[in-house]
């Protein structure tokens, strides 16, 4: 177990550095002068330019610039500053909890609906319910967030008045609809995964033994089947947290939620590269960490992994 954990941690380091370097390089390796862009119409004096270049390490080679940036992020939580000298870290601190709440709501919704539907489909395999559930997952996967977001906002928010249309003023309740929209495709994947996993588990020998012992169906499915089928589901849910945080950009824009995605879009519109790089870097860190935790959890849940 210990060796597995250490190996997995060591593997994460090059991925983390590589991914953040890639992001940094895409945005900052461009021809063109960020100081010029910063100054706008009026060209600044050469002395000012020189001081600014020195301050932002623009005279150093790219790898060194990257090192200044990533060491600041990892060791001091410093994501640099915007062109107006506002720390990007502070902007993210104000918006991150909102996005996390949205992503967690989506995760919960998808766990309840996805596992529920998958369980139902698996137990009624080959029957009408199964076919209908599978067909509806196809539709869930196919309708982009962009479409489901606006349509549900109009139908459930405006026409029926069941949910708030925008913003987060009503606490958890206002996250329900955006959470469902964000979870959309993942609900479908989770349903299919639950169904496949459970169908496979229910075929195994120990289930047959349990049935042969005369154990009742509820206990066989719940205790023996579901518990073992759960392993791939937990890993999917964990890995999906990072995806949901990244995918929240669109949902947040549709429902006017002031999260990290909205901050990212603001950075894109205002051409504030430090915001863009900061937000994407932070989200990628979350993504990598979520995957790491899932892999470690996998080893805890499934003893077969540890002894590899």
């Amino acid at each position: 177990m210990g060796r597995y954990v250490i190996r997995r941690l060591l593997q994460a380091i090059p991925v983390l550095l590589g991914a953040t370097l890639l992001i940094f390089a895409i945005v900052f390796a461009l021809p063109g002068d960020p100081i010029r862009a910063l100054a706008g119409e009026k060209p600044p004096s050469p002395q000012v330019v020189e001081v600014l270049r020195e301050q932002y390490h623009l005279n150093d080679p790219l790898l060194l610039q990257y090192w200044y940036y990533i060491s600041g992020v990892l060791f001091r939580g410093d994501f640099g500053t915007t062109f107006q000298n506002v720390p990007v870290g502070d902007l993210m601190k104000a918006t991150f909890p909102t996005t996390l709440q949205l992503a967690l709501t989506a995760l919960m919704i998808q766990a309840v609906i996805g596992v529920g539907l998958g369980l139902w489909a698996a137990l009624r395999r080959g029957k009408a319910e199964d076919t209908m559930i599978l067909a509806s997952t196809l539709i869930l996967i196919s309708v982009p967030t962009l479409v489901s977001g606006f349509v549900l906002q109009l139908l459930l928010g405006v026409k029926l008045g069941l949910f708030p249309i925008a913003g987060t003023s009503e606490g958890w309740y206002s996250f329900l609809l955006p959470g469902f929209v964000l979870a959309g495709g993942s609900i479908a994947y989770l349903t299919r995964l639950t169904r496949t996993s459970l169908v496979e588990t229910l075929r195994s020998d120990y289930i047959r033994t349990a049935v042969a012992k005369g154990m009742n169906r509820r206990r066989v499915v719940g205790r023996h089947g579901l518990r073992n089928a759960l392993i791939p589901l937990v890993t999917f849910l964990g890995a999906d947290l990072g995806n949901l945080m990244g995918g929240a950009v669109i949902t947040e824009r549709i429902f006017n939620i002031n999260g990290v995605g909205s901050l990212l879009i603001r950075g894109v519109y205002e051409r504030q590269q430090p915001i863009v790089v900061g937000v994407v870097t932070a989200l990628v860190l979350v993504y990598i960490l979520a995957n790491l935790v899932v892999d470690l959890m996998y080893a805890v849940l499934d003893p077969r992994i540890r002894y590899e």
Partner: protein
Amino acid sequence: MSSSVASPPQSGGRHQKKQNDKPASLWSDAWYDLRRKPAFVISAILIGVLLLMAIWPTLFSSVDPRACDLSVARQAPSAGHLFGRDNLGCDVYSRTIHAARNSIVIGVLTTVLVAVIGGLLGMVAAFYASMTDTVLSRLTEIFFAIPGILGALLIASTFRDQINSILLVIVSLTVLSWPMTFRIMRAAVITAKNQDFVVAARALGAGPSRLMFRHLLPNALAPVIVVSTINLGVFIAAEAALSFLGVGVQSPDISWGLMISDARDRFLDAPLPLIFPAVFLSITVLAFIMLGDAVRDALDPKLR
């Protein structure tokens, strides 16, 4: 491909053809299955109509999509303007039809690029193994750590105004998506590589390129085709998302994502200019994903 002597019998050939006694190949077997699937027929018809729309939009609408008149903005649907007019008074029906081309072009080109780049690298990595494989595989892990839409947003926002917006969308999506095809191709080639017919071909003196393209490729192609079909739908949705966020297709080009973005401000009192492109977008994505699902079921004998 069915007559290729080099390709080994891949499936038992459940459906023997009457006129020859050769066992059916994986492909003709799959084709036999597909033609009988309603999901395949429906998606094929939908895609056919969409392709026609992309190639020849004036067949569906004679109204100029760029002829706009502010005085009739958000006009309700009428006989000449089936879907009504949008915020700038342009005909929504005509714009929705004309947008199909950009979506299809972006979807198809991205899919082809991703399949070729990811597929080639995947095959090379699996074939040469050792260092080549290690380096390429580590590289894909780095790309995998960046959630797709974020990475594409990053690239598209950085290079916008510098190259053509449609080209930029294709490049942004390709850069982030090739690793998936890489993994699938790599896994398929590794499985095929050690089979007897490959060893035999190698013993007969076949060179690397002959081994790869004549023997390994036909046997590793099926999973790549499946994932590419599904990806086509995913890329079309991604294009719409990028355009909606303002870093994809730019006006005066037309795209469903852009139409949704434009209609957004007045959506709550004039929903139709948003709903129509949204419906077309969803149906297009559905058609490709449904096709991918059907092709997977037909090509994967294990699921039978």
